[in-house]
């Protein structure tokens, strides 16, 4: 009897531990009333009294700042603290623990006043429904007039659309809204020097173009590379490296076959690449290349490689022909002259499958878009006092002005007290991070991109405020980009992103869960089957692919497609 009782008590204890940590839900929160059809009635909670000093706690993930440990010490933050009579006190978890720490903060209810949410695994709508964050929409007009004006400017409709939800809520002060698209940082690259060597400098692609553009061009390139590597007697080499899952989710190669690696839009219809006919055409070609020995034979086992740094032993060892590369690898950057390795790496567009399509799909999963997302930026905790909230809004609002955007993006000027900042002074930036003479922007010498001492040691980002909310003025930085990077970026961007599924569409918490659940159901099957089709361990025919596509749809692709379509339609009709 005693034993039974003990067992019962222990079982009870175990069961009760399941509920441990369940906090109280304060229910729906947020200030202001929503007007019908979106937008919000402005709320006035009194003027921000700048005479009164405020301490505002901010949760932010950590970077390698090189010159200081905490963002509290960031020169731009210190300047803003002085300007707005406040102390932005950053709480930053150890690198690698961000998601866990954010979840812990949500679980324990001990929120900071303001939280950067890119490590939050829940959507902002769900945070709002749980009473964790405030709806900022009613406060914008009175307390963030510059941001409000920015959002309502006709040319910024895309940003506004991305940040407001269908009910007129706005939860996120965006992390960085770019004034212009960035250069793209990576894409497919190839060893041009191999072709030059093998043809004696007379490279002639079947398409007649100066660069490989069609599948036939790639056939020629890969065959030439294989001949080269075979002749070199290399034990291990790869003419083409593809990811372990057999395709690039970001769309490389696939767009040449008219499909994307994920959800995309074509003529108003949302599609999922891996179940489309173009994907079959892609698989047929990859299988052919695999059988010919063009694709790295052990590609499916390289599950630990990140797609942008595949098999570095081969790429950096001079034994790879085509792979997903980065801007820093272009031209002769990967050469090792002391070991007799001279390479010339150039950007490469997806191979156009002329037999099935006439143009690359205008889709890319990588581009640093101008459009803001409500999943990246700062939210205000429901527990934050109104005084702290409006002070933070004042600070953030300033960073949406031209002057604030320059401060945030390029750092302190002499007029803003660069000489008084110890980090600036120590780095030889007493005259400011840059100077403007009329319309001419000039970086201070230590910060000149690629050649300045602070850029070389990687500390340049520590002098600006790029982790704060606000506008990112990248106009002058783009002018400093090297010619080869700009050229490569143009190749990688391809034909644009008209077919991209809008990244700013926000799903409700419930639908988000459905989509995530579907993804976990079908992704395992997809990532198992694709390598098998390519390696020939699974028969690849029209019929077997149709069966595969049907199975994918039944595993959740169909339901997700319906959800994507309905949200897309609603988004477009707004």
């Amino acid at each position: 009897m005693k034993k039974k009782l003990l067992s019962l008590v222990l079982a009870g204890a175990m069961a009760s531990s399941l509920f441990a940590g369940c906090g109280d839900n304060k229910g729906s929160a947020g200030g202001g009333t929503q007007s019908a059809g979106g937008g919000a009635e402005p709320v006035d909670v009194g003027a921000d009294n700048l005479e009164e000093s405020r301490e505002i706690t901010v949760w932010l993930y950590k970077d390698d700042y090189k010159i200081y440990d905490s963002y509290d010490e960031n020169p731009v933050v210190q300047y803003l603290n002085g300007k707005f009579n406040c102390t932005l006190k950053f709480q930053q978890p150890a690198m690698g623990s961000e998601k866990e720490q954010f979840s812990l903060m949500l679980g324990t209810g001990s929120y900071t006043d303001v939280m950067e949410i890119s490590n939050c695994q829940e959507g902002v709508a769900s945070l709002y429904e749980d009473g964790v964050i405030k709806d900022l929409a009613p406060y914008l007009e009175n307390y963030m007039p510059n941001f409000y004006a920015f959002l309502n400017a006709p040319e910024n409709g895309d940003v506004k659309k991305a940040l407001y939800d269908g009910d007129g809520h706005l939860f996120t002060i965006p992390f960085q809204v770019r004034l212009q698209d960035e250069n793209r940082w990576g894409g497919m690259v190839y060893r041009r020097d191999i072709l030059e060597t093998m043809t004696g400098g007379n490279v002639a692609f079947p398409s007649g173009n100066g660069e490989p553009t069609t599948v036939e061009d790639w056939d020629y390139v890969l065959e030439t590379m294989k001949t080269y590597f075979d002749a070199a007697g290399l034990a291990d080499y790869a003419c083409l490296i593809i990811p372990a899952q057999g395709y690039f989710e970001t769309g490389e190669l696939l767009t040449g076959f008219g499909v994307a690696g994920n959800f995309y839009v074509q003529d108003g219809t949302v599609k999922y690449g891996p179940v489309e006919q173009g994907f079959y055409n892609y698989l047929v070609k990859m299988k052919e290349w695999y059988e010919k020995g063009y694709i790295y034979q052990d590609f499916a086992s390289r599950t630990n490689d990140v797609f942008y740094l595949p098999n570095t032993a081969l790429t950096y060892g001079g034994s790879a022909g085509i792979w997903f590369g980065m801007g820093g690898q272009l031209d002769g950057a990967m050469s090792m002259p002391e070991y007799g390795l001279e390479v010339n790496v150039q950007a490469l567009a997806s191979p156009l499958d002329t037999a099935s399509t006439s143009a690359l799909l205008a889709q890319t999963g990588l581009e640093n878009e101008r459009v803001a997302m409500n999943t990246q930026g700062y939210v205000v905790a429901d527990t934050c006092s109104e005084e702290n909230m409006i002070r933070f809004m004042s600070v953030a609002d300033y960073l949406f002005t031209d002057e604030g955007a320059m401060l945030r993006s390029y750092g302190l000027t002499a007029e803003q007290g660069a000489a008084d900042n110890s980090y600036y002074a120590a780095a030889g930036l007493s005259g400011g991070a840059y100077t403007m003479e009329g319309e001419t922007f000039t970086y201070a010498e230590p910060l000149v991109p690629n050649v300045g001492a602070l850029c070389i040691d990687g500390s340049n980002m520590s002098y600006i405020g790029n982790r704060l909310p606000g506008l990112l003025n990248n106009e002058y930085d783009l002018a400093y980009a090297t010619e080869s990077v700009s050229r490569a970026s143009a190749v990688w961007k391809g034909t644009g992103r008209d077919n991209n599924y809008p990244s700013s569409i926000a799903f409700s918490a419930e639908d988000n869960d459905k989509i995530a659940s579907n993804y976990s159901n079908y992704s395992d099957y997809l990532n198992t089957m694709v390598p098998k089709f390519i390696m020939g361990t699974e028969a690849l025919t029209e019929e077997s692919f149709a069966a595969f596509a049907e199975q994918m749809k039944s595993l959740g692709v169909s339901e997700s497609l319906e959800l994507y379509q309905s949200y897309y339609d609603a988004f477009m009709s707004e």
Partner: protein
Amino acid sequence: MIEKVGPSRVIFNILNYGFMIFFSFICIVPIWHVVMASVSDPRLLMSHAGIVWKPLGDITAEGYRLVLQNKSIWMGYGNTLIYVIWNAVVGSLLTVIAGYLVSRKDFRLKNPLMIFILFTMMFSGGLIPSYQVIRALGLINNRWVMMIPGLLNAFYITMMKSGFEQLSDSYEESAKLDGAGPMTIMFRILAPLVKANIVVIVMFIAVMQWNAWYPASIYLPAARDYWPLQLFLREMLIQNDTAAVVMGSDAAAAADFTSNLVKYCAVVVATAPILCIYPFIQKYFVTGVTLGGVKG
């Protein structure tokens, strides 16, 4: 008399030694690989596949220079030493006391107390309740969070209890006849007899504390000055993993190969001290857990 060694013994010895050599080799190879990689040419290291048997290219100490010039490393070393010494000394002292207490046959609360202790070994409240308790105690971002909550370990108490229980009652009885009190019996009579157990527990605590980074990452988010070495090193490893991403995101940036080297150097720096201490205490491990009090 010379013992004659039969063929079966010879075969056994060959297999035995062969297996042990093979096993040792497997244990040593990863350490060797890391040490050799840490002094290799970083660019060649990037393009090398498989185990590094000897330094690649010219031997370089650049990685060590980068690791050791990081002031956080020294601060982390200092903190780790504090935590290791405190937990090893105070923790093992408390473990001895607890083990002695629950091993006494005449202690009436022995069984309930043991159930209470074992309960904590089997059931945990979970991270969030633990965090809430720690927060309520005012220990978040406080150095003592690394020094108080983990002082006692239920498993070590049961180990200590077993050690004391294996001693003959006659030790305690004779000490009592000589007029010794409980403290004298525990510290001067019985504890020296379970010295091996205590050394093993001290070693376990020291190694565990040396490697601990998780509690600090949870409870000291805004108190970097109190972080142990391992948390700094972990951050350094992650930084240098993500350096590749940063390198990628800045399309114009040249590749920084030293970040690859730093990972290996950080592992060596973190492991070397504990590896140096281990051989000196190793002899206690063999007898530590099973030693009894009465011989022959």
